[in-house]
């Protein structure tokens, strides 16, 4: 059984808990073990990066150092922000001797070292490139036939580092969801900004960003938006009342791709956290298409 280190980050224990709730059983169903880092800390966070980049890197590097110590070859970071900050820190470690110096000193103070190994991977990347679509198809017990999905990637998993997919037109999630039986609607806004943390500080432009994505998904005939990022999920799912009051009603469920995988694998909907959305997805087991397929 392959084992990866697992860095959940704060979101997966909080507002994004449905992500973790679906991620862990899906990986388990695929015979992949995730070992959570012990005593992990804040990833450094994009917000802190904007205030003090070097200190943010120091925080990220403690997690990297501990992952290296844990000894598994690679680490999975499901939250896009964690994924980016951890990778950016690795980048600085290799490219900037000055930042490296600060990090090494800070790590030495807590008896840690980091050699720059341990790749930080996104679960979407691991699913498609390590495990493979064939393996995933084998686990599908309840194909999501007829479910129309807008695959929404957000910005951070493809920019600035496009390590496993195209920067402008990523297709990894499309292929994965197709393997589950979903129908993908053409979605030109797949990497457009969700509003990010702007919605917390300057609500109007932030909400507009979310509204544009929601409205386009509805216009394209999607039943549901699939995402890979807790902040995207929160922005797209959490402000429907405000958006409806300001513009028009754009209610459509936004779920994690792992939740759709769990559904297709025949896992329990409640166990996958599908009830947690403000705009919940219609229970799939009740859909006529799903009923037609033997479990």
């Amino acid at each position, binding site marked *: 059984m392959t084992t990866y280190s697992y860095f959940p980050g704060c979101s997966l224990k909080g507002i994004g808990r449905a992500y973790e709730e679906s991620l862990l059983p899906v990986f388990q169903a695929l015979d992949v073990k995730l070992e959570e880092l012990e005593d992990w800390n804040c990833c450094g966070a994009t917000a802190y990066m904007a205030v003090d980049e070097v200190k943010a890197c120091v925080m990220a590097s403690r997690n990297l150092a501990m992952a290296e110590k844990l000894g598994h070859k690679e680490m999975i970071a499901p939250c896009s922000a964690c994924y980016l900050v951890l990778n950016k820190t690795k980048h600085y470690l290799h490219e900037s001797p000055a930042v490296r110096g600060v990090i090494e000193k800070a790590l030495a103070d807590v008896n840690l070292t980091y050699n720059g190994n341990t790749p930080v991977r996104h679960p979407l990347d691991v699913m498609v490139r390590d495990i493979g679509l064939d393996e995933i198809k084998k686990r599908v017990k309840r194909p999501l036939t007829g479910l129309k999905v807008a695959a929404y990637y957000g910005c951070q998993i493809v920019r600035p580092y496009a390590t496993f997919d195209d920067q402008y*037109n990523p297709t990894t999630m499309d292929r994965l969801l197709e393997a589950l039986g979903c129908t993908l609607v*053409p979605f*030109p*806004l797949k990497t457009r900004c969700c509003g990010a943390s702007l919605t917390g500080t300057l609500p109007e432009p932030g909400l507009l960003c979310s509204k*544009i994505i929601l409205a386009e998904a509805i216009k394209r005939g999607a039943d549901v938006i699939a995402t890979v990022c807790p902040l995207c999920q929160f922005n797209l799912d959490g402000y429907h009342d405000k958006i409806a009051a300001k513009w028009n009603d754009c209610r459509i469920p936004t779920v994690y791709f792992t939740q759709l995988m769990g559904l297709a694998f025949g896992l329990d909907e409640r166990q996958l956290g599908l009830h947690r959305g403000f705009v919940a997805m219609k229970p799939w087991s009740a859909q006529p298409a799903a009923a037609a397929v033997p479990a």
Partner: protein
Amino acid sequence: MDATKKQDVRIGFYICHCGSNIAAMVDCPAVARYVEKLPGVVLSRDYKYMCSDPGQELIQKDIKEHQLDRVVVASCSPLLHEHTFRAAVEAGGLNPFFFHMVNIREHDSWVHTNKVEATEKAKALAHAAIQRVAKHKSLEVKKVPIHPDVLVVGGGIAGIHAAMTMANAGKKVYLVEREPSIGGHMAKFDKTFPTLDCAACILTPKMSEVGSHPNITLLTYSEVAKMDGYVGNYTVTVKRKPRYVIEDQCTGCQECIANCVYKEPKFHDEFNEGLGKRKPVYIPFPQATPQVVAIDPKVCLNFRNGVLTDKCKKSCVTACGEKKAIDFTQQETVQDIKVGTIIVTTGFKTFDAKRVPQYGYGKFPNVYTALEIERLVNASGPTAGHVVMRDGREPKSIGIIHCVGSRDKKTNRWCSRVCCMYSMKLAHLLKEHTGAEIYSFYIDMRTPGKGYEEFYDKLLEEGVHFIRGRVGEVTDWAMSPEEEGKLVIRVEDTLAGYVRRIPFDMVVLATGMEPQADAQDVRRMFNMSCGSEGFFLERHPKLAPVSTFTEGIFIAGACQGPRDIPDTVAQAGAAAAEALALIDKGHIEQEPNTAFILDDECCGCKSCIPLCPYTAITFDESKKKATINEALCKGCGTCVAACPSGSIVQNLFDDEEIFSEIDGVLAHD
């Protein structure tokens, strides 16, 4: 050193100030005084410019007055002036190889900052040269006759022009073209910038001249498979693909096409960039040269997967009748050609627009490449010049995006040079054909050519909108009713300072120029080099722009880098002139610094043979010894160093010379 003392040589030493290039960092008189005392040195001088006429005359005069028999000049790189000084030594009455040059400019004064140390280094280098030159032997420059015939590879406008120039000068030319017709990219263009004269009107007369020229052997649908030999004596193997039509018997009447069992054309038409259709038996375009049809075995019913089945009723053969030009049994043939010089004009390929997915080529049917538009506006194109989109509508608004695949770290970093101009040409033609509103999105407008900037002015007056900004994306994401069903270009207008969304019916991508997909194979075959971007490398970017690092092989046109038609033709003429100069001299002079085998000592181990980068070494089976072809040897010394029995010696670099030089450089402390 003892060795030098025993030598009865009379050496003259000259150190050059090179203005202040050397003298500012090296104390030249001090070096001259130092060398003066070395054994064998009869006189030692410093002089402001040794390469000047008085400098050269000084050497000649000294040789006579002081009976010098060896000369050393310490100055710049031998690449620049070794030839100059060897000539001066020869004019003074000595064998030119009783000379040695020391590079104290590039290797010393230009790269050091401490005058004392730089002077000491110059002394050491000079000391080495003095000891080395004493061991020099008299050598002879060999002359090898040159074969007067020429091979031109690639029948685009560059190859056509080079071949015509050579043929008109009375040389026999072989022109090899991979496609069924010559003409290249230019034949696909509608008009040419900035004069707007029709590309076909100026190209096709040259094409038919090539086809009928008595001095030109035209080999279309053929590829060069192999090249052997050396400057003046190349043997080239040309592979002739079967076109299933006997060229000499086909009159180009096209009855076979009219009578093909396929009543309607239905296969991808390469010449029209897939916008039109052709039959399995076809002629690429009306003015194709030669006027000979070709049969495509991939789609012809008489073949299956390219293998002859003879299952078609062959109405083409019946239509051809007595001419009997169609021959389904034709096989690939191979032909050897002997030439003295080769001009490579293999051209470019256009950038694949799908590599920039955000511009939607291949995803949105109404996104076109510029080359597709050339065919679409052309009177002999798939729509007879009527601009209709893939969905059948006529565009009322068109956006042209510049620099697609150019000036971008993610794709190609270079500027493709022609796109600004051809974009404006297409803007003009599209406006003329459709009356549509046209927007051109550019990063910088590059119009450096005769009449080019004036053409830009003309377009501005015609009402084409120019927006400075790199387009972010082409999307079908509509935000307003007027954007519905349109292609929306999102761009930061960097002059107006805000982000715009502009809806269009049609989007045209000005794709850049790239090296041909097989440029690396061609490079290897002709022993050329490529720059980092993959275009063939010229010997010198300014002073030898059409020469390569292999003697007798020249390059011209877009295989060397992106360029437009005027520059391509100029370069093709230059390459032809260089080749002519070589041929008309009648012989090649060969540097004597080649390697040779000491037959008595060679043990026949063959370890040198695979190491030679110029394939100059062969194995003589009767003698069981290696032999080196002097004409091919470039004097790199690899075999000399590798020979386990020390039985390979190189002129000007024999052990005695090299060890003396090393002793000399170490003698100075």
